[in-house]
């Protein structure tokens, strides 16, 4: 029935153990990480499965996925470039930066490069307003902040990733 639970029974049980009987719903965030392990994003079915495990509505799970930039509901590149585009960042030129960056890579916001290496997203506040334009990079190793960016510096970075990938 519940594919997610079947696949990661042990891990999910361990996570659930940490929460008191009437607060199992709080396990939603670690469970979402479990779901993301495989493909790097939470599929719709995963959301239903998690909702079933912790007895909340699937809509509530989806709301959490949508709220946090660390969860994804779509497949993306190996390196997710998440550019903050909120007002303070925009005042420091992040809008233009994002536009030019995309132009240079040849994709639109929300898309992934053909080789599956980079996807560019526009996100809400990352608390780095003073060092904008900035972006948060998510790759399988973790989350990294890259601040005071220019289009050139970012393109250099992407070139480095590409080289690493080639090795």
């Amino acid at each position, binding site marked *: 029935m519940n594919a997610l639970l079947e696949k990661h029974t042990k891990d999910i049980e361990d996570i659930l153990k940490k929460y008191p009987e009437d607060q199992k719903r709080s396990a939603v965030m670690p469970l979402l990480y479990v779901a993301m392990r495989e493909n790097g994003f939470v599929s719709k079915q995963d959301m239903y499965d998690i909702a079933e495990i912790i007895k909340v509505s699937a*809509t509530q*799970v989806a709301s959490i996925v*949508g709220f946090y930039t660390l969860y994804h509901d779509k497949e993306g590149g190996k390196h997710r470039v998440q550019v903050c585009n909120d007002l303070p960042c925009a005042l420091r030129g992040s809008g233009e930066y994002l536009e030019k960056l995309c132009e240079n890579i040849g994709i639109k916001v929300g898309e992934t490069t053909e080789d599956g290496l980079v996807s560019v997203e526009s996100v809400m506040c990352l608390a780095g307003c003073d060092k904008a334009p900035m972006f948060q990079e998510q790759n399988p190793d973790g989350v990294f902040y890259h601040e005071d960016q220019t289009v050139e510096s970012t393109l250099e970075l992407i070139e480095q990733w590409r080289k690493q990938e080639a090795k």
Partner: protein
Amino acid sequence: MTEVLEEKTTKLVNLTIDNLEITAPEGTLIVDAAKLAGIDIPVFCYHPKMEPVGMCRMCLVDVGMPMRDRDTGETIMEKGKPKIQFGRELQTGCTVSVSEGMVVVGYTEKVKKGRQDILEFLLSSHPLDCPICDKGGECPLQNLTIGYGSGESRFDLEEKQHLAKHVPLGDLIWLDRERCIQCARCTRFQDEIVDQPVIGFQNRGRKLQIVTFSEPGFDSYWSGNTSDICPVGALTTADFRFGARPWEMQASASVCNQCSVNCNITFNTRREAKSGGDLVIKRAMPRQNEEVNEVWLCDKGRFAYTSVKKDDRLTQPLIREGETLVETTWEKALDLVAEKAKEAGKEMVSLVGGRLSNEDYFNINQLTAHLGGKSLLNSEMAGGDLVSQVGLGTGSNIADMGQGDAILIVASDLEEEAPLFWLRVKQAAERGAEVIIANARETRADRFAKYKIRIAFGQETAVILSMAGAKEGIAVEFLADDAKVKAAAKVFSEANNAVIYYGSDGLGLSGSEELSKACAFLLSETKHTGRPNNGLVAVWNKANLQGAWDMGFRPSETLAADLKNAKFAYVVGNDPASKDILEKSLKDTDFVVVQDVRLSETAEIADVVLPAQVYTEREGTYTSAERRVQRFYPAVPAPEMTKPDYKITAKIAKRLDLSLEKIAASLVFLDLAEKVADYAELDYVRLAEVTEQWPIIGRDDLFYGGTSYQNTQGLGKQISPAIETETIKYEAFVPSVLSKKDEFLAVPVTTLYDRGSTMLSSEVLQPRIADPYVILNTADAEKLGVEAGVQISVKLNGKTANVTAKLDDSLAKGIVLVPRSMGIPISDPGSITIKAK
């Protein structure tokens, strides 16, 4: 008006809003205090029925407090008045509560500018759809923009967001993403009020959007209410999509006849070209009645009007000539009916359904009594006589129940049987009332119940009797959890006020009768009778069954035999022939007269068919399960040849030398009040009385409470139970045991979205109807090799049917839930055989 709030908190504070000195209970929010004083503070996200969130910032006001001396704590005076210090920034009136000496200002340039800017921001991504928007004309955003906006925008029109414009959020509600102003009223309603968070917000900032992930989308019985409280046209109902502009419609007050809550509604009507220029109902809206439905409606009640179709109506009296029914005149039909009724005399039977008005019941009963026949009710629930004895005390309002009170729900899936009762009990639980549930399966009411007594089907009466302390002959030991029963019994008997809701979950007529007796016994043992918010409520499955009981109709255990032996059956507003056994007996009845609005199965085998009117076409009164008598008014004209039921009966009576009132329903009611003691003090004028209600909803300030209608046509009157004036004793008894002969026991349960005629003939509700199904225990299903969702073959009462299997873990082994009106006729618990296919 303030009394409404004053009752709850005693401490009052004095404050000034817009130079008006007012008194309000401590803790009242500024917006509510202003509303009480008749001052408008514009809001979008605030709703008086929900917790404030301060999301939209529209209710900005300048709030000042009296200055105090730092050393002495004394109020600093200036020119004989306290010196007021205003805050640096504006505050939201919906999140700040009033305090002594507070000064609230909403008219200064600073406040005006603040609100203007908020509106400018809100409109920066709101489309200019007003001419085609269903909300246009009754839209808070439109009205407040005119009232408080600056008249121009500094944002570029070209930069408006373009988003999906018609997203079906389920079958009943459409979402326009562009129009949403993210006030969260809808999501909060689903979460806070009805505890079904099936819609929610996704993403952040400007990308925030409403999503639903339930299967089917927006899977809730309450979805229509979100469209009422939506301050823009983002959520609109499927039935009214582009149906008419709000200002073009007339409003007529009515009462919903889908269940025994009797919610107050308003029908909006307009002439329609495709109906040949006839006045038709365009939509149904809630009408405020804080003692019944507040400002809410369930979706079935809201969309049920769509099931009334002009084409399938009976429009002419029909008379049997050989095999066929042929049209005839009223004179001929009535003469024949009267002649046959006279011949039958004592051997006549009147059989009525549960949706007629009190006036109809009264006249039919008078006619039957005149002939000496039997007044029978086609119903599978009993106990109306007990409700009239120990029903809710005069002046009851579930909204007054809370801390220290207890509510017992027995044998009822309350949300399915009477959605608004469920909502009101849930709110009472949130105010601190102890909810005790004695059900044989899990229901949505379990979530807020403190005591959940899981019984087996057939133990309903036993559990209530044992709660009342009766021991003899009651097999207490087979009760699921004796300690829990004792604890619940203690809470119930010690509660200040206690109400019992008994339903029909798993019960047939005899089971229902025993249960109602046990409930009356428990109430009288614990002295929870004859006072407000104490007493018995039967969760009837039809709108006016209580009225039928009050007018003298009784269900019969031997209905089939009664019909078979009768020489003349007068069948009004029900369809007995839809059940095989009754169809057989009706064929043996010498003469069958059917009085209905549609050509029902019974009408097809009748000798005379008389065309009656639908409740939307005429006047009348209903008595709710809480014994509140309420008036409904005509909304649309009736087909030319039809007549209201009371009139048809009176015309028959006249031919039998019995004079019954037929001119108007109000006059029938006068007769009724004279003859039926409980109704003695009522008349149509009293029923139309209205007192002030809080919150103030439905006037020209649609932004405050949504588009629910103000009640100007009557709140109805609750009638007193007999126990208030006389002493009635109830005895304990030995309940009968539900024996299980075969492997599987089928028990009838109620589901709101059934396959009854209302649901099937409504195009709007149709997509929500499930295929015929039964619910099995998971273990049983495994044994049978049945998986969830597969087709199985069931045999019940000699009838075989193919249905979908649904599974439920919480169900006891060997039990099969068979929903009523869901394709398999069931009236009593009984054996069922199941075969996997």
